[in-house]
């Protein structure tokens, strides 16, 4: 048990710490960059999803519905793979248009509709304020629990009469945080690195604290999960809890809750803010698709055991939502309870702060500014220091949201459980989904359609859910539930048109979403899009066309503005320095000394885009209406223009692809050409060698033939000459054979396989060299091995290899070792010599056609340059690995792996 002051000091110390963390990351640019480029930070920041609901509510829900609690985590997890293209698309669009909130996103899609943006924002206020208030409730409840240790229902909080409510203390701190780190944007985009880092940091705190509490309960107070389940089984109707099918509607509610959660995970204002507005790079999504679900899994792993533990230890007088705190407290582990409390504080603070910021952005950009900027006086007021005024407005709004939430909590929320409010909020937010999905994937969706669909959806949602809730609590006349609206039974909020037998959430979600989609489609099909809607929907459907290329919108609308006036607007938003940059970027060099009279469409678009990043698309449009003239455009013309730009885009994509292919092909051709050239050079050398080789014997033949014809040659001489003529003729024909071999080498040689003794073959070949080897020593170490391959071709290979060994060794000191052995299921033949060797740069090439190592002039070792090339081609055909190792001056080793 702890005193009020102790707990408050500890809690404030923790919050001060987060202030410091946020402050430091904003102070140090290096750290800031490091963090904002880290996809881990992004993935963790998405877990702002896990609020007090996760900390307390899930356990409570698990205690009453068993696995029913898990839908809230399952939905986002199942949808996570879709983030890779859907969230990516949303982010691409939002980055391009500098979207500031979910309301801005929807308003932008439907022609920068101020009306739609305002409606969405107002609904969000109504949905989120109760949601925040219920977080406050959880926080205060946990505070009192920790303070007086009295965890029985309804008795908490009474000893604190002389103090401030702790929740007001906290909510003020949260608002301060939101003001300090959420309304000091250093550049006009709505990015707050300090905030993101703190949320990521709190994600870790939440998980660690939750796990500490959970592990203490499961392994310290009980003997593990098995122990809890055994005890629970004997005490409770076990099956009813852990199995999903708790009554016929349970599967249904499971599916519905998963669906709602999946949508809420992206479209809740705070989620959209973290996932889209604060996103620095679409590359970060990839890690989030597995890391964030993993986090959800980790934090929900022990929920069921804790719920069981609570059910074992307590009777119905203890609120199941508090089990994570009450169990350690009951067991006297107040340290653990304090840790859990800090975790809950982290969860609550993250949720509330981000909600406050996103709501304040939404309310200022989509409710106040579109309204205020229409008024000339206000327009002038805002323009004098837009950024400053905007931040002022946001701060006021944060305080207002704080007061509303606190007030709502004090007057209404006392009676609600976290989960019931949470689910109703989710279902409300889900009403945004049709406008978003159809907006991104169906170009015919119109502003009227979206507005009507959303309105109908929200009305039905309100009727079937919050209203039902109020009636159930007795705040409204409960005859509404039993008899229906105006006493009409088909208007019963829990069984519209007689559709009964479903739980409230499933029933309400079903009707509201179905009607929402249906109305959106029907109205869209019966209404026309305005030119601005057409051009905006084009961006939402094909964002790649825009963010990849130069600004094609510039040429869609013809707009004109007085430059001086526009310059003034721009200066109010961006400040003097940045304006210069933008102007130089757009107009180049001498714009600063020589202003143009009129600004063109491209520049106006640039200004509007910067402006949208601060005050939202709808407000930006309204603001610019004061200074910009727009030439009216016929919708038909616009559509054809956009089609044209799309064709241009497609064409340029195609062109890019083609030119890449072309450059690839050019590269390939270059390579091929280089090879051909090399081959050609080799061929020239070869031809020159062959002609030389042919001319030499023919010279002798011709000369001797002439001698024999002219002179009366003595018999002895004559015989000698005739022998020479014969020899040289043979030399010519051999050469011709080799050239023909080259021709044959082009085609794949056919193999005639047979089994034979390799050692016998080698001996036979070596004996054939007896005459030419002179005093070279040929040593053989041959294992008697039988192999199965083409004998003829192997013989040719070996003759070539051994002939080379002889050719390149000294005729007296030459030593050639020939080995044949078996190893690893293969037969190896090695021919090693101690000849002149081949240096490294030639080694690879000796197997190429026509290649001869010796340069002209030192042409002692005559040949056509074909021998080894033919060997290699035979070896390849026979599956023989022919390798060469050599060191210049020391000799050469050729090995065959058969």
């Amino acid at each position, binding site marked *: 048990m702890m005193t009020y002051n102790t707990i408050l000091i500890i809690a404030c110390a923790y919050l001060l710490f987060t202030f410091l963390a946020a402050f430091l990351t904003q102070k140090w640019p290096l750290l800031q960059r490091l963090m904002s480029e880290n996809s881990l930070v992004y993935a963790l920041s998405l877990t702002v999803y896990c609020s007090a609901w996760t900390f307390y509510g899930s356990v409570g829900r698990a205690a009453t519905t068993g696995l029913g609690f898990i839908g809230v985590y399952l939905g986002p997890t199942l949808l996570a793979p879709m983030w890779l293209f859907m969230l990516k698309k949303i982010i691409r669009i939002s980055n391009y248009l500098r979207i500031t909130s979910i309301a801005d996103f929807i308003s932008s899609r439907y022609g920068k509709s101020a009306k739609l943006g305002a409606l969405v924002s107002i609904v969000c206020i109504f949905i989120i304020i109760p949601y925040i208030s219920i977080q406050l409730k959880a926080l205060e409840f946990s505070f009192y629990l920790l303070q007086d240790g009295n965890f029985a229902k309804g008795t908490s909080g009474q000893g604190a009469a002389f103090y401030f409510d702790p929740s007001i203390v906290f909510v003020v701190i949260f608002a301060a945080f939101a003001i300090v780190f959420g309304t000091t944007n250093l550049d006009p985009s709505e990015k707050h690195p300090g905030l993101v880092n703190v949320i990521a940091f709190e994600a870790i705190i939440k998980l660690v604290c939750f796990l500490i509490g959970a592990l203490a309960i499961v392994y310290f107070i009980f003997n593990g999960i098995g122990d809890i389940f055994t005890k629970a089984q004997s005490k409770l109707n076990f099956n009813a809890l852990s199995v999903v099918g708790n009554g016929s509607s349970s599967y249904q509610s499971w599916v519905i809750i998963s669906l709602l959660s999946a949508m809420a995970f992206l479209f809740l204002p705070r989620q959209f803010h973290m996932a889209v507005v604060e996103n620095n790079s679409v590359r970060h999504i990839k890690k989030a698709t597995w890391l964030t679900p993993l986090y959800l899994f980790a934090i929900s792993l022990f929920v069921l055991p804790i719920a069981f533990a609570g059910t074992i230890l307590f009777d119905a007088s203890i609120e199941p939502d508090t089990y994570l705190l009450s169990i350690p407290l009951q067991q006297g582990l107040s340290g653990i309870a304090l840790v859990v409390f800090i975790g809950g504080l982290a969860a609550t603070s993250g949720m509330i702060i981000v909600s406050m910021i996103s709501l304040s952005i939404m309310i200022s950009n989509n409710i106040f500014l579109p309204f205020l900027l229409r008024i000339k006086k206000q327009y002038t007021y805002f323009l004098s220091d837009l950024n400053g005024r905007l931040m002022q407005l946001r701060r006021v709004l944060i305080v207002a949201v704080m007061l509303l939430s606190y007030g709502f909590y004090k007057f209404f929320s006392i009676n609600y459980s976290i989960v019931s409010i949470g689910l109703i909020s989710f279902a409300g937010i889900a009403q945004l989904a049709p406008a978003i999905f159809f907006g991104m994937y169906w170009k015919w969706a119109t502003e009227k359609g979206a507005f009507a669909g959303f309105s109908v959806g929200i009305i039905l949602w309100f009727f079937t859910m919050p209203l039902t809730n109020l009636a159930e609590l007795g705040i409204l006349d409960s005859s509404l539930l039993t008899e229906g609206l105006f006493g009409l039974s088909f208007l019963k909020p829990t069984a519209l048109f007689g559709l009964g037998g479903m739980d409230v959430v499933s029933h309400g979600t079903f009707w509201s979403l179905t009607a929402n989609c249906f109305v959106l489609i029907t109205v869209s099909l019966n209404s026309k899009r305005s030119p601005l809607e057409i051009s905006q929907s084009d961006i939402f459907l094909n964002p790649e066309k825009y963010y990849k290329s130069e600004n094609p919108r510039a040429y869609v609308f013809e707009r004109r503005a007085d430059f001086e006036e526009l310059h003034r607007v721009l200066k109010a938003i961006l400040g003097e320095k940045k304006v210069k940059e933008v102007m130089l970027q757009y107009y180049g060099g001498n714009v600063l000394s020589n202003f143009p009279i009129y600004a063109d469409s491209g520049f106006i678009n640039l200004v509007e885009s910067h402006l949208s990043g601060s005050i939202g698309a709808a407000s930006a449009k309204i603001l610019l209406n004061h200074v910009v003239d727009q030439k009216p455009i016929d919708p038909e013309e616009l559509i054809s223009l956009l089609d044209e730009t799309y064709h241009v885009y497609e064409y340029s994509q195609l062109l890019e692809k083609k030119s890449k292919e072309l450059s690839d092909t050019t590269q390939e051709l270059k390579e091929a050409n280089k090879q051909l050239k090399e081959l050609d050079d080799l061929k020239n050398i070869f031809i020159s060698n062959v002609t030389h080789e042919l001319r030499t014997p023919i*010279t002798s033949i*011709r000369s001797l033939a*002439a*001698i024999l014809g002219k002179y009366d040659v003595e018999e002895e001489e004559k015989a*000698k*000459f005739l022998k*020479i003529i014969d020899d*040289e003729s043979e030399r010519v024909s051999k050469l011709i054979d080799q050239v023909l071999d080259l021709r044959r080498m082009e085609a794949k040689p056919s193999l005639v396989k047979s089994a034979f003794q390799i050692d016998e073959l080698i001996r036979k070949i070596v004996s054939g060299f007896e005459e030419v080897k002179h005093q070279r020593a040929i040593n053989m170490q041959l294992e008697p091995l039988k192999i199965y391959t083409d004998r003829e071709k192997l013989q040719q290979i070996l003759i070539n290899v051994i002939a080379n060994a002889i050719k390149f060794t000294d005729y007296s000191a030459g030593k050639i070792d020939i080995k044949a052995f078996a190893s690893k299921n293969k037969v190896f033949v090695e021919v090693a010599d101690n000849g002149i060797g081949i240096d490294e740069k030639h080694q690879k090439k000796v197997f190429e056609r026509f290649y001869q190592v010796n340069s*002209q002039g030192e042409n*002692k070792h005559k040949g056509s340059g074909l021998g080894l090339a033919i060997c290699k081609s035979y070896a390849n055909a026979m599956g023989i690995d022919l390798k060469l190792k050599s060191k210049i001056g020391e000799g050469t080793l050729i090995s065959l792996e058969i």
Partner: protein
Amino acid sequence: MNKKVLIVDDEENILISLSYLLKKEGYAVKTAANGKEAIERFRQFKPEVVLLDVMMPEKDGFSTAREIRQMDETSDAHIIFLTAKGTSQDKLKGYTSGADDYVVKPFDNEALLDKIMDKFV
């Protein structure tokens, strides 16, 4: 005194046929199988005509010719290249290295004899 001819070629068979031919025509003949040998023989033998093969191992005909010219500047020996290479580039290279004439293999015996005779006319 017989006119002296030095034949340089690494092909033994060519040496055989040429020396037989020239001897029959009344020349005094010496042979060499490579450039190094050729220079030595030239020094001792002092031939009037040298038939020099271009493509020889170790020292080719061109450099052999250059060395002969450097070695004995007073000598007016006639150097005739015998070569299996017949491009004009090869001819140019032959003349710049100090050759007087050029015969492409395989040659007509009579044409070769005429070229040798030129020296002595």
